[in-house]
Structures are given as structure tokens and as C-alpha cells.
């Protein structure tokens, strides 16, 4: 067998490589020529090969200063570039951070910056020099020259910061404030370190752009030249080796600056990973022993009551738009595992973020442990949040991530590492303490996030779709693990998910939501046994929703006439209905028997049965899911035990009759609205 992988690149690759090499020759060739020519013998002239080798021109230039004030202009330019670079970094970082919020005049300022960037340099210089002239001031490189250069480096720095900050995940900062960092600590410990490569980039660009700038400075530098202006003045004799010597010397300086900058980036990266690798390895055994007392001072001395109460909470993001959360009331007892379940955009994450303090209600109150925390910052609530993408600080090792909250609280290194180690053991990650988050798998990252959230000893843990980034296998394992940890800690968990199975598997209380409202809040069993309305029944799954007009009432039940002409009995459980009224009911799919129609059995359905053509058949292992097409648009599904099904397997396209007993029907709440066609379809597909 031939190995086709090594069969070679297509011809286009070789053609493009050739293009690239030619371009590099085009780029570097002429420059190399002048570097060589700058070592021309004292007679000068453009001859190849060189007439002797000498450093004469460099000597003239730097020591004797014959060809103009190179040394002086060089110093001036470096000073200017350094100042420009520092100012650009400081101002563009600040402005870049400021631009993350909307503020009046932001758009205007942005367009000014762009216009300033693309404006011909001489035009800007002309403007500044005219202003100075009209004011009767002298132009000076320290004032007008500096300003002129900033009009070019600042927009540039701002654009770079936009790009860098745009890729910056906001939840890093939210995680930091959750863990107790103040605004300043957050900026110093999280924001700036993560933005560091971009900051060095801005500094480097600021320096080199300024160091080489002359279109803007030619009219604004005043009586003293900068280096580029001096070089520009020397171009009156374009064949002078002195000029080439300047070129060689300045190039060397530029390369030194770039080299230093790149070197420092590499050094920072290396120190980070080395720091991560070396830091916690030497935790002494004594520190381990002192673990438990060490934990308590870190914690705020709040009551441990983790009950949550939302009172008439409304959140509107844009005025006039429908609210994300509308007049919502909810009570979650201390130590409960509560799942907020609903399709995307139903407001469940908004609720979570309002409990966390990352979002404030437009109206209404949030109470934790019977204390009103509506407007408190995250750290004062005794809550901790696990973010959807985990928001692990990419520049800190696993143990530093976990110990972050203790560092913020000023706990010593040995102590905080000991506590962090203990938590890592709890999530079985002690062997990975020195890794960086990027070196972990998704499941491991999730456990680090859990440990980091738990280190503050929270009374409430908030989990935003904690399992959505994991594969199926890990998801099943981790949801059991979450439940185990919650039991062990005995604190309140609020878990946001859009997966019904996940919610029913872990929760004590499932809150089914739709469009900012709670449709039902109850135990998973109660929701499954008696869903309140058609929406809940469809969303929670395992139910068929059926409807029909009341034909007869009696003996505690109503008989409905369905759209396809069948009749079904629904127990009323004390509800009063009138004939002709439209009713909705749910039927558990695992309480339905399916058989072939008996010979002679007509199309007309019997009481408590439906007939139709089999549409799909899915073998689920312990049961078989049969979908029957009734012709009324609503999906009718029967989950039949595998042993029953395989006695006489029905195939797709066969006719089938489904039957059940009336006691398995549950009356739904939807009747008053009589919205037989207006029922909202849940976006998630029910199982």
C-alpha cells in the first residue's frame, strides 16, 4: 500500500512557495545592499564588490558628527518614542476598557479616531502648526511633535485593544468579583495579565511608529530635528554611504528593540509556566494538617442559611421590549438542589445572574437567607458561580485558580495552597495542581471550576449550564457527581439547564420556565406525574398532549370528542367543566398498549384508543418508541416494553391501535384560554 499522505504537495504549493521566496528577496534584497554599502571604503561610490572594508562612515556619523547631528537626533527620537509608547499604552488600554460599555459620544469618538488614523500626516502637522502659529507659540517636539504623533499612535493602539478586548471573555472578570476581588484587584490580577500580549504589542507599535514617524512631525518638531527628519534632510544626497551607514545603524537599533520586546514576551510566558510548575509542589505536611482552621478565617461570617427567595422580580434589558423575566416569584429552601429548566431565551440564565449579583432586577427583590441582597455585589451574597465556559483564568495554574479567592482575602501562600489542595482532592484533581487550564480536558476543567467556586465556602452555588460543554459520557457521570457533592456539602445548588433529563436526574425542585415566567415549580416526580399545562407536559417529555371538546360530564370524568373523531375519558379531579368546552389532557407514553387492528375493526376509534399509521419506530433498549400518525398534527407516541413489542413487531407503515385506561389521563390547565391552535410549541424536542 502506498502512503498517500506523503504523496507530495500539489503544484500550487510549490508555485506559491516560489512567489513567497521571490517576495522575501524583493523585501530584503535592496536593504541588504545598503547595509553592505555602508561599509564602503572612504572613497565612497556605489561599486560592487566593495573597494575595501571600513567603518569610516559610522565613525564620521557617530563620533565626529560630520553628517549632521545623528547622536542628538537619535536621543531625541528615542525619548519621544518612549513617551509616545507609554502614553499610547496607558490611554488606549483605558479607552479600550471604557468602550466596553455604551456611553454618549462613543460612536463619535470612534470615528474621530479612525479619521485621525487615515488622515495624511502632513495635513495633521499643518493643522497643528497653524494652531500654534495663530496662538503665537513656538512649535516644539516635546509638545506639538508629541501631540502630532499621538494622533496616529492612539487610534492604532485603540484598534489593537479593541481586537484584544473583543476576544477577552467577560466571565473572567465576573468570576473574579464572585471570588471577592475588588474592581482594582480584578484589573490587576485578571484583566491586565490576560491582556498583556496585546499591551506589549501596543507598546511596541507605539514605539516603532513614533520612532520612524516624520510626515506628522516635519511641521511640528520645531527647531530641533528628530532622527527621521535628520535622515530626510540627508536624502539630498541619495548616494552617500553616510546615509547608508545611518540606515544600517538605525536598523540595528530597531532590531534590538524588537528583539528585546519579543524576548520579554517569551520570558513572561516561560516564567508563567515555570511558576505554575514549581509553585505548589512543596506544600509542607504541617500546612496540610492545619487545613481546617485555615479555612474558616477566609470565609465571611454570614449565616449559613442558603434559602433563596425571589419576590416579583422583573428584568427588562431594553426599554419597550418584552421583559426577560416578568413578575417572577420563587422560593428555594436551604440545601435544595433546584434546576431552572427551559428553552434558550426563557430567562433562566437571567435569574441565575440576578441571584449571583451579575445582573440587577429592574424591579422586585432577591433574598438569600432571608436577607435582602437585591443590590449587593456578588462577594457579599455568600454565593459562588460556576460559569458555562468555566472562566478559568488562563494565566494561572490549576491550584492558583482554586486558591484565587483566598489570595484576594490576603491568606498566606502555604495556607491557601493547603486549602486548595484539599478541594482538589475532593474533585480528584490533586495530581493536576500544577497544570495550566488549557492543559486539562473539559471534564477536568469543569471540576477545577467547581473547586474554585467552593473555596469561598458559599451557601449557594450557582451553576450556569455546567454540563453543556461535556460529551455525553462525561455529562452522565458528572451530573451524578454534582448531586453527590451537593449532598455532601448540604448547601443550595441552583442549576440552569435546557435538558429535561438532566434536571429530573439531579434536582429536588424543577422550575419549568417559558418566556420569563414559571410554568410549574415542583419535584421532578410531581412534574412528571401531573404536568400543569400542555407546555410543561410537552417540555418535560414522556407525555402525549391530547385535546377535544367536552361531550358528556359524569362520574367525576368528562368524555372528550377529539379532532379526529375519537372519544377519550379524562378524570376531572374536582374541576368543573361544561359541555362544549375545549379541554387538554396529558397521557403518559409508557402506559399505552399498541396492537394491530383486529380484522373488521374500522377506522372509527373505540373509547380511550386511537388508530393510525406507524410513522417511526425507535428501539431504545428497554423499550421501543412507536410514533403513530393520527392525522391531526399532534405527535402521538407510545413507549412499549421491548418484550411486549417483540412478540409481534409492528413495522413502519403498518396500521396500529393504541389503547389505555382512563386513569392515566391528566387534565391540563390550558382550557380557559381555549387556545387549541395557539399552544406554544417548546423549542426542545421531547423524548
Amino acid at each position, binding site marked *: 500500500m502506498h502512503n498517500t499522505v506523503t504523496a507530495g504537495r500539489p503544484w500550487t504549493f510549490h508555485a506559491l512557495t516560489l512567489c513567497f521566496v521571490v517576495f522575501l528577496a524583493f523585501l530584503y534584497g535592496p536593504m541588504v545592499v545598503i547595509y553592505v554599502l555602508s561599509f564602503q571604503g572612504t572613497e565612497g561610490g556605489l561599486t560592487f564588490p566593495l573597494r575595501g572594508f571600513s567603518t569610516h562612515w559610522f565613525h564620521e556619523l557617530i563620533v565626529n558628527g560630520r553628517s549632521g547631528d545623528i547622536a542628538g537626533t537619535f536621543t531625541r527620537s528615542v525619548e519621544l518614542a518612549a513617551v509616545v509608547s507609554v502614553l499610547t499604552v496607558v490611554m488606549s488600554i483605558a479607552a479600550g476598557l471604557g468602550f466596553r460599555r455604551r456611553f454618549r459620544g462613543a460612536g463619535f469618538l470612534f470615528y474621530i479616531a479612525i479619521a485621525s488614523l487615515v488622515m495624511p500626516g502632513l495635513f495633521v502637522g499643518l493643522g497643528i502648526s497653524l494652531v500654534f502659529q495663530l496662538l503665537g507659540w513656538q512649535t516644539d517636539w516635546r509638545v506639538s511633535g508629541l501631540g502630532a504623533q499621538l494622533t496616529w499612535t492612539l487610534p492604532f493602539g485603540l484598534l489593537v485593544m479593541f481586537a484584544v478586548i473583543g476576544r477577552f471573555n467577560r466571565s473572567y472578570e465576573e468570576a473574579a468579583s464572585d471570588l471577592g476581588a475588588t474592581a482594582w484587584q480584578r484589573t490587576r490580577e485578571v484583566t491586565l495579565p490576560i491582556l498583556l500580549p496585546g499591551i506589549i504589542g501596543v507598546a511596541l507599535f507605539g514605539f516603532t511608529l513614533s520612532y520612524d514617524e516624520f510626515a506628522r512631525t516635519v511641521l511640528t518638531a520645531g527647531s530641533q530635528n528628530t532622527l*527621521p527628519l535628520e535622515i530626510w534632510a540627508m536624502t539630498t544626497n541619495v548616494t552617500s554611504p553616510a546615509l547608508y551607514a545611518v540606515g544600517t545603524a538605525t536598523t540595528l537599533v530597531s532590531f534590538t528593540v524588537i528583539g528585546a520586546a519579543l524576548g520579554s514576551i517569551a520570558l513572561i510566558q516561560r516564567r508563567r509556566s515555570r511558576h505554575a510548575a514549581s509553585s505548589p509542589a512543596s506544600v509542607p505536611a504541617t500546612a496540610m494538617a492545619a487545613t481546617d482552621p485555615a479555612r474558616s478565617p477566609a470565609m465571611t461570617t454570614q449565616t449559613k442559611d442558603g434559602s433563596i427567595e425571589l419576590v416579583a422580580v422583573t428584568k427588562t434589558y431594553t426599554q419597550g421590549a418584552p421583559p426577560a423575566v416578568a413578575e417572577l416569584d420563587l422560593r428555594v429552601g436551604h440545601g435544595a438542589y433546584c434546576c431552572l429548566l427551559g428553552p434558550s431565551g426563557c430567562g433562566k440564565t437571567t435569574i441565575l445572574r440576578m441571584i449571583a449579583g451579575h445582573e440587577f432586577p429592574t424591579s422586585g427583590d432577591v433574598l438569600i437567607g432571608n436577607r435582602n441582597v437585591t443590590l449587593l455585589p456578588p462577594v457579599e451574597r455568600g454565593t459562588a458561580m460556576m460559569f458555562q465556559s468555566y472562566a478559568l483564568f488562563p494565566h494561572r495554574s490549576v491550584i492558583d485558580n482554586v486558591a484565587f479567592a483566598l489570595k484576594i482575602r490576603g491568606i498566606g501562600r502555604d495556607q491557601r495552597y493547603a486549602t486548595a489542595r484539599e478541594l482538589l482532592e475532593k474533585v480528584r484533581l490533586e495530581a493536576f495542581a500544577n497544570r495550566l487550564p488549557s492543559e486539562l480536558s473539559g471534564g477536568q476543567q469543569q471540576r477545577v471550576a467547581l473547586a474554585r467556586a467552593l473555596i469561598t465556602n458559599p451557601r449557594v452555588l450557582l451553576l450556569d449550564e455546567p454540563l453543556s460543554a461535556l460529551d455525553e459520557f462525561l455529562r452522565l457521570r458528572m451530573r451524578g457527581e454534582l448531586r453527590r457533592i451537593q449532598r455532601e456539602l448540604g448547601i443550595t445548588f441552583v442549576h440552569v439547564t435546557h435538558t429535561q433529563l438532566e434536571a429530573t436526574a439531579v434536582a429536588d425542585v424543577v422550575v419549568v420556565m417559558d418566556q420569563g415566567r414559571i410554568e410549574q415549580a415542583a419535584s421532578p416526580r410531581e412534574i412528571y406525574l401531573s404536568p400543569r399545562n400542555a407546555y410543561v407536559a410537552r417540555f418535560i417529555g414522556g407525555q402525549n398532549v391530547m385535546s377535544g371538546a367536552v361531550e358528556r360530564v359524569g362520574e367525576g370524568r368528562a368524555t372528550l370528542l377529539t379532532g379526529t373523531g375519537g372519544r377519550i375519558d379524562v378524570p376531572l379531579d374536582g374541576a368543573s367543566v361544561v359541555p362544549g368546552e375545549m379541554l387538554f389532557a396529558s397521557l403518559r407514553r409508557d402506559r399505552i398498549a399498541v396492537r394491530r387492528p383486529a380484522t373488521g375493526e374500522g377506522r372509527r376509534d373505540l373509547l380511550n384508543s386511537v388508530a393510525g399509521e406507524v410513522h417511526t419506530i425507535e428501539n431504545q433498549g428497554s423499550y421501543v418508541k412507536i410514533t403513530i400518525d393520527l392525522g391531526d398534527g399532534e405527535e402521538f407516541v407510545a413507549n412499549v416494553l421491548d418484550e411486549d413489542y417483540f412478540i409481534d413487531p409492528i413495522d413502519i407503515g403498518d396500521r396500529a391501535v393504541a389503547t389505555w385506561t382512563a386513569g392515566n389521563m391528566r387534565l391540563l390547565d390550558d382550557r380557559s384560554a381555549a387556545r387549541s391552535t395557539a399552544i406554544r410549541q417548546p423549542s426542545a424536542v421531547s423524548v
Partner: protein
Amino acid sequence: MKIRPALISWLQAGPLAAILILFFGIPVLVVVVVSFFDFDHSDIVPTFILDNYQDIFTSEVTWRLYLSSLKFAAIVWAITLVLGFTLANYLVFHIRSLLLKIGLFLLCSVPFWTSTIIRMISWIPFLGRNGLFNTMLIDAHIIDKPLDFLLFSDFAVVVAYVHLFTLFMMVPIFNSMARIDARLIEAAKDAGASRWTILREIVLPLCKSGIALGSIFVVTQVMGDFFVVKVMSGGQSASVVSALQNEIAALQYPPAAASAVVLVIVVMMMVAGILRVVDVRKELAS
């Protein structure tokens, strides 16, 4: 006390805004005002006249200068676009090793960090009548006598522009290309698209914003240039800005201001034209 978030934003953006308004906003307004002033000898006379503009639009020189600058802008734009796109395409899609990719990218951008004037000047010993290129051609017996059109000509101007500005085109295109999801290319291949079709149907539309940004940089650089044209054409060609510089050197500020205003309007119209075709705000925001 809680500080309003918008106020924090203003404090953060304030210094940058102040510098831009002081050294860019106000000077631009002053140039516009001065362009309506009169002058005698070296003094500016505050009055309101339209003569400066009238002179510009009635002078045949203006039209020649603009024609020449636009011609250079068009040629250089076309060359840098093809070069920048080809090089970025090569680096992003044909170099598999990330380290090599970064290395080659740095190799392309290193000259950018050195003096612009020196890079321009470096063509002189290479292209000159007795320069390296002519010498090589003669030694190889390809030509008998030196080629004269190489230096101090429009050709030399274009070569220097391409040398200086290709990177401005390449970097934005490289950026937007690097952001293209590799699975898109695979999906196109699965659908049976050829290399060329992929380039035309997938890559090109997805780098539109990069191309637009690069085009803005290149076009504004060429239109704003006054030194390359002056040196590389040996004084034979002029650009709008080199003429402007001559007026400034002669201390004729009001006419200089007027031609600067006209130039900026033309350049801004070109930029606006590019932005109309491609919305680069998405690119900047992401």
C-alpha cells in the same frame, strides 16, 4: 456612593478623547478656517475669500497632480492586493506548522519596523544606472547598456510604494483569513469545490473586511505621500501632497490649507467608498 457606569467609561476614554480633540479635531477645523483666509508675503490675513479654492479648481496643475496621485494609488492598490492576498493565502492555508507560520509572518513584517526612508533609499543603489541590477544584467549579457527607466521614474516610485505598503495590505487579510474556520474549507471540498472555487466562493468573501481595511491603509498612504514620489522620481513626478509641501515651504498657508482640505475630502470620499462596499465595523468589533 455608586458611580454611574457611563461616567467611568468617560473617565477611561477621556484622556484619549482630549488628545484627539486637541491635536486632531481643533487643528482640522483651523485648517478649514484658514483655507478661506487671504495672505500676503508670509502673513495670514483673516477674511473670507474663496480665491484659494477657485485657484485650485481652475488650475490645470491640480488636475494633473490628482490624476497622477490617483494613477499611483490605483496601480499600487492592485499590486499590493494581489501580492497581499497571495502571501496571506500561502501563509494561512498552505503552511501547516504553526511555528513556521508565525516565523514566516514575522519575517515579512520585520522590515516594517525599520526606517521607511531608509527602505525607500535602499532601492537607489539597486536600481541606479550603475546599480546592482543593471550590473548583473550586463554581466549576464542580457542587455548591452544600462536600463534607464529603472530609477528616477514612475517605475521606481511604484516599486518603492509596493515595497513599503504591501505589509499594510497583507496583515489585515492575514488576520481575517486566519479566522476562517478550517471546517468551512473541508465542507467546500466535500461538496466538490476545486481549489480555485474555494478561493473565490469561500475565502475571498470571508476576507472582504480584511481587504477593505488593507485597501484603506494603502490608498490613504499613497494619497498622503510626498517623499517617495519626490525622491524616487528624481523630481520628475509630483503628488498632491508634495505640491502641498512646496506651498507650505513657501509659507503660503491659506492656499496650502485649501488644497489640504480638498485632498482630505477626496481621500475621505475614497475611504467612504470602500466602507460602502464592505462594512469593516464588524471586523473591528470582533
